[in-house]
């Protein structure tokens, strides 16, 4: 078995990248356009170069991404990504919805990590409002977001392995994915696009029977990850096709704004859950996996290890939540939060609040905020501007996939056409999020 040997590298402490570090020299980032790998001058008129369109409807692009690739034999000598095929104007639409109604949109932007996208928008609204959710809501949000992280990584694992030829992996990964969707259905009534997070907390209390079911999943998941690893971790074809392929150096990763598993696979110990804790991530115990070679294999390893760590976080959330039986799940602010259903029959005041909130929506004080969280794909940001009215003035999502896609030009320099699919797959982009 011939396994590609890779030289050892050290984990980079990001704080050394301060000051006048030569961040942008001696790297593979294309010039003059960082997102386009230009065909070399001497090959411009060559008959040997063939231009091939991958997409927009290529099955391996996880959506509709078009890659215009110049090939010299099997080698990639030019690459340009064309996007926009899934553009549906989410941000424009959200400006015309009340804050309340707009919560449904972010989930559909990234339909694979829907819970995390919902969270960042709700956190941003709460920051503008100055609203503090009760602890039960915080821990439940954390639990669902970590389940969602596993869900997203499972889809990456299944589809990436499928593209490289390990077909059975897909069925194993989707078995556990279905368990997560069943849990999601148990809590929220919907398998995806749950709209379970409200400004102020959760939409409903956690239903009875959820904790034991979730506990069963936590016991099952580490074994499942072991199963996946026994399937492909020592598989010669998998190793040949992922090791040393699509290498991204730490310096390039920072200059290109990469985040999440991509930057952690390039040897940078950076996770917003640790570095800039939100929710209650500073109260749970988990490790941040960092690998140093920056290739497709290391990005895969990061995600595998993260599934284990996320399961640990879920178990710790369950420990806390089981002691919170009967506690409030949403803040008691009647100007923002819907009154309890039973009060509508007895309280005039509650009925008025309910009517006002549903028809006109709540008002959010004027201001601008930028909130970031660690989504399964990396740094997910939400920029909100409010004019003090019931609708957002401007909503903008910093989508990690949108930033990861142009990095393909750097990663594919000198790669072979067969590796293109492995490389683009390892960036784990979701086109709904790229195009918004």
């Amino acid at each position, binding site marked *: 078995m011939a396994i590609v040997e890779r030289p050892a590298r050290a984990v980079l402490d*990001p*704080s050394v*990248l*301060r*000051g*006048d*570090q030569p*961040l*942008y020299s001696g790297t593979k980032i294309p010039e003059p*356009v*960082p*997102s386009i790998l230009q065909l070399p001058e001497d090959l411009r008129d060559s008959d040997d170069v063939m231009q091939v369109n991958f997409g927009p409807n290529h099955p391996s692009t996880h959506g509709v991404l078009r890659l215009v690739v110049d090939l010299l034999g099997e080698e990639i000598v030019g690459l340009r990504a064309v*996007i*926009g095929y899934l*553009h549906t104007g989410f*941000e*424009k*639409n959200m*400006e*015309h919805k009340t804050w309340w109604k707009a919560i449904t949109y972010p989930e559909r932007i990234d339909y694979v990590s829907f819970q995390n996208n919902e969270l960042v928008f709700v956190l941003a609204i709460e*920051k*503008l409002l100055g609203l503090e959710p009760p602890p039960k809501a915080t821990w439940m949000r954390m639990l669902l977001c970590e389940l969602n992280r596993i869900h997203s990584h499972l889809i990456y694992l299944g589809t990436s392995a499928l593209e490289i030829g390990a077909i059975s992996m897909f069925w194993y990964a989707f078995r556990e994915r279905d368990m997560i969707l069943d849990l999601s259905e148990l809590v929220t009534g919907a398998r995806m696009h749950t709209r379970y997070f409200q400004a102020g907390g959760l939409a409903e209390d956690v239903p009875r029977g959820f904790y034991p079911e979730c506990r069963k999943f936590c016991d099952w998941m580490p074994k499942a990850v072991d199963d996946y690893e026994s399937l492909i971790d020592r598989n010669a074809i998998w190793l040949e096709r992922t090791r040393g392929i699509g290498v991204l150096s730490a310096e390039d990763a*920072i*200059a*290109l*704004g990469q985040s999440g598993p991509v930057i952690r696979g390039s040897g940078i110990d*950076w996770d917003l859950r640790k*570095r*800039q804790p939100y929710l209650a991530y500073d109260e749970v115990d988990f490790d941040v996996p960092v690998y140093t070679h920056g290739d497709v294999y290391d990005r895969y390893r990061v995600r595998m290890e993260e599934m284990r760590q996320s399961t640990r976080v879920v178990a710790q959330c369950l420990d806390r939540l089981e002691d919170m039986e009967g506690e409030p799940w949403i803040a008691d602010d009647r*100007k923002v939060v819907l009154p309890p259903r039973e009060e509508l029959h007895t309280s005039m005041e509650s009925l008025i609040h309910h009517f006002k909130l549903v028809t*006109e929506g*709540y*008002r*959010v*004080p*004027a*201001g*601008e*905020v*930028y909130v*970031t969280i660690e989504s399964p794909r990396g*740094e997910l*940001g939400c*920029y909100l*501007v*409010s*004019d*003090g*009215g*019931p*609708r957002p*003035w*401007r909503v*903008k999502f*910093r989508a990690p996939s*949108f*930033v990861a896609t*142009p990095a393909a030009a750097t990663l594919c320099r000198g790669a072979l056409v067969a590796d293109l699919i492995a490389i683009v797959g390892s960036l784990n982009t979701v086109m709904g999020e790229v*195009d*918004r």
Partner: protein
Amino acid sequence: MDWDGVPGLLETKEDRGETTLVVETATLVEACEHLRDEHGFNFLSDITATDYLGWPTTTSRVAGYYGTAAGRDVNAPGSAGLARLPGDRPKRFSVNYHLLALVEGAPRLRIQVWVDDGEPVPSVVGVWPTADWHEREAWDMLGIPVEGHPNLVRILMEDDWEGHPLRKDYPLGGEPVRFSEEE
């Protein structure tokens, strides 16, 4: 932190724990390089342009959306107790650069420049290569011309698209619905 050395600094704002530096458009690149090299902001998180056309002022006293149904007054400030009048905006568009330093504590910073319709902002691709697609999006969606960008073409909309969809005077639903019986 001490922002005195930032070239072209006009104003420093603190709100909800976030720092915003309003800088002059002409010296934006120098300001960005200064912040990257002197203050360690090595990571450009995001670039967002915002259109403030029709933004409520103290004289108009009406919030809401330019070009939508007339007589919309549900946004009149003060009616719900929470609203307060937003401040005036110096020009029509703001362009916001969200920076992050990959160091302990993860300090963040927003750089803001203000431009009028058609007024260009300098490109920061040379400072942070990741700015490439963000700036193309600002051009495509809001029509902010970016001076010195190596490849300023539309990114999300088609190449021959007219108008910039995220502007406030661009109507929602202005596109005719295709594929209906009566085309």
